[in-house]
């Protein structure tokens, strides 16, 4: 049987990759994918905890996270398209109208 700590370490690594991608990448779509990566890393650790604790709460939360992530993706992409119509770029550095 795979020990719990492996899952937790995997989840931490995936989460860190997500944070790094969010902060370091310059393409909005990749930033968006990094966000999803962060959410899914949490799903891994929740499912693992849920199994080892023999408690359903974690798995229930996983389903909620998947659902909310879908809603979030829909809204995020809609906002992205509304933005793209007025300013056709997906480079983070070029989104700098508001600053000061």
């Amino acid at each position, binding site marked *: 049987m795979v020990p719990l700590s492996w899952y937790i370490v995997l989840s931490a690594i995936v989460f860190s990759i*997500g944070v790094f991608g969010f902060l370091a990448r310059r393409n909005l779509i990749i930033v968006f994918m990094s966000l999803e990566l962060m*959410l899914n890393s949490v799903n891994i650790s929740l499912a693992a905890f849920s199994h080892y604790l023999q408690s359903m709460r974690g798995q*229930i939360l996983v389903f909620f*996270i998947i659902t909310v992530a879908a809603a979030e993706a829909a*809204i995020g992409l809609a906002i992205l398209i509304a*933005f793209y119509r007025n300013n056709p770029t997906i480079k983070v550095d070029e989104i700098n*109208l508001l600053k*000061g």
Partner: protein
Amino acid sequence: METTDLVGLSGLRLIIPELTVICIALILLLLELIVKKKEVMAAVGIAGTLVALYGTFKLFGINGPGQAFANMFVLDGYANFFKLIFYVNVILTMCISLKYMAVEKASYGEYYALLLFSTSGMMIMASAADLIVLYLGLELMALSTYILAGLMRKQLRSNEAALKYFFLGAFSSAFLLYGISLTYGLTGTTNLKEIAASLQALNIADSPIVFLGLIFLIVSFGFKIALVPFHMWAPDVYEGAPTSITAFMSVGPKAAGFAVLGRVLFEAFGSMHVQWNAVLIPLAVITMAAGSVIALAQSNIKRMLAYSSIAHAGYMLLGIIAGTPGGLTSTVNYLMIYTFMNIGAFAVIIMLRREGFQGESIDDYMGLAKGHPLAAALMLIFMFSLTGIPPTAGFIGKFYVFMEAINSGHTNLAIIAVIFSVISAFFYLRIVMYMYMKDPKEDVVLTTSYSMNFALAITAVMVLVIGVFPSLLLDLVRVSIPG
């Protein structure tokens, strides 16, 4: 826990206010197909909110504290008082936005539905006794607000505001989830009360991993209430979003963030007070410092108020740092006062906006008192209140927060807060100085309407009444939060 009613149908009674708000929002979505007049939509929205308000206080009076849905949802004075803040916030926002959204050519019916959806999310957050419910409420609030920020689809700065708000908001909710997952893994539950019991029973309050989970939670709530260094989104989003939405989200999501921060820290992690203070005290100090100092350099009034709202978050945090029920009371009291004075200030900003004139630069306020003495006097009241000068309500809010900080032994922190409060007087009173002591550059025409006048009257009267008779509000808060 009730075993006979596992589904919790009896609990439906406790969520009547939330159900009312959501139903009205759904009705508004359908109404938008038939009704062309936006005044009708706003009226229906306000009427629905008043029904929910009546429901909340009806339940509040009769039941007192109650729990539902396997202790996931709690209805107590704390939640009810926050719901009062959210109702006031959404009603005033609807009043100030009618004419404004028409001027911005973004007068959509969905606007009112989304305001109510967002409010229902905040209400769920205030009542959450479980981290799962907390997460769902937070997302309901946040997702609706992202859309509202980008509602002026044709304007690039609104698009950009929504984009920035969305990405940083989603980033912060990933942190929230990671914090929830760590807490769940170590305590074996997501219920706030059971987390506290589990921390005691397993004796893991000193564990660094629990502390790490707590830090993740604080970071994510810090994004919502715009604490430095998690505030980067606030100035950009406040500037780019429609002004009425800026007013809405400078109060609503911030109050909801404080509601969950207070409840999670006090109920679940009460035994770790020393640890969370080690994080919150430095955050409060840099929040007050950055908010007050950077606001000095702003030339756009919405951006200036964004930094001011960051500084106010720092002052409010003092009540939570105190860690006593009295401290929590003072924070909640401050939030209620802040609601009135901040929405009032944004209402004046909205009045200056008209076709072909932004009215967002501080220079636009030059000589306002000459042409429009009443508008200038109202702005003066709100600016004095935001500074914290008696006899306005802002003074009462700050006074009680600072007093609680001193009572709990954080005298240094209170002194720092007073110093930054004095610094912040510079940029608030600069507006007053521009209005009264400079000559107008061009004639300003105000855009007014009955609903706008109503909102201004309510906010100004409340700011003065609470300032002169603080016990009116304080008694209500003390009844809500026993301790």
